[in-house]
């Protein structure tokens, strides 16, 4: 599973991307967030306030209940501010 982090999510976690193999039972974006939060204070900080966080699965905006699998690309970022 490929993970991507952008803007302050990237800064808090300290990297832009990583490959992870979450344990069995991580079936949704929300499960993944719970798993990542336990990995360290940077992750915990990045995922502390889910109201400020957005996610994409395979480059499409996704809710936290979206299902995910090993071959997916999951991204976390703040609400977008382009244009």
């Amino acid at each position, binding site marked *: 599973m490929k993970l991507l982090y*952008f803007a302050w999510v990237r800064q808090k976690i300290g990297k832009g991307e990583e490959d992870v193999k979450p344990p069995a039972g991580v079936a949704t974006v929300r499960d993944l967030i719970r798993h990542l939060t336990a990995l360290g204070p940077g992750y915990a900080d990045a995922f502390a306030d889910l109201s400020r966080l957005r996610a994409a699965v395979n480059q499409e905006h996704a809710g936290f209940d979206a299902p995910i699998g090993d071959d997916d690309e999951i991204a976390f970022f703040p609400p977008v501010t*382009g244009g």
Partner: protein
Amino acid sequence: MKTRIKIQTAPFDLGPELEEMSQGAGALATFTGHVRGEDGIETLMLEHYPGMAEREIARHIDDAARRWPLLGVTVIHRVGELKPGERIVLVAVAASHRREAFAACEFLMDHLKTTAAFWKQEQRGTETRWVEAKASDDNAAKRWK
């Protein structure tokens, strides 16, 4: 319909871009967004999600083309380090008539602001601040539902 999406670090000129869009169209509506120099911003850093940013823009262009009869759409979005006054984004829409061109141009800008995968960081001296999304932009995009 001719579609062009460019995400680039290099600055762009309006003349050549728009000159090409004009060919054969009755109406051309454009929007250009610039880095505002107010509040002492020295640099605007623009980050994007390569792949997703282009996909979102393409999706909104498809949506616009389903709503209105369009002849061409060009979207250019800069990323990287920008200075006050520089152009960030160009949305240009060619159509036969002005109503469609204006509507599609505004539709695309509203959706670019709220769903395209770009993030802005303002730099003032040594201080940096991520720009927060605005409720007014969300409301603008909701008008089109």
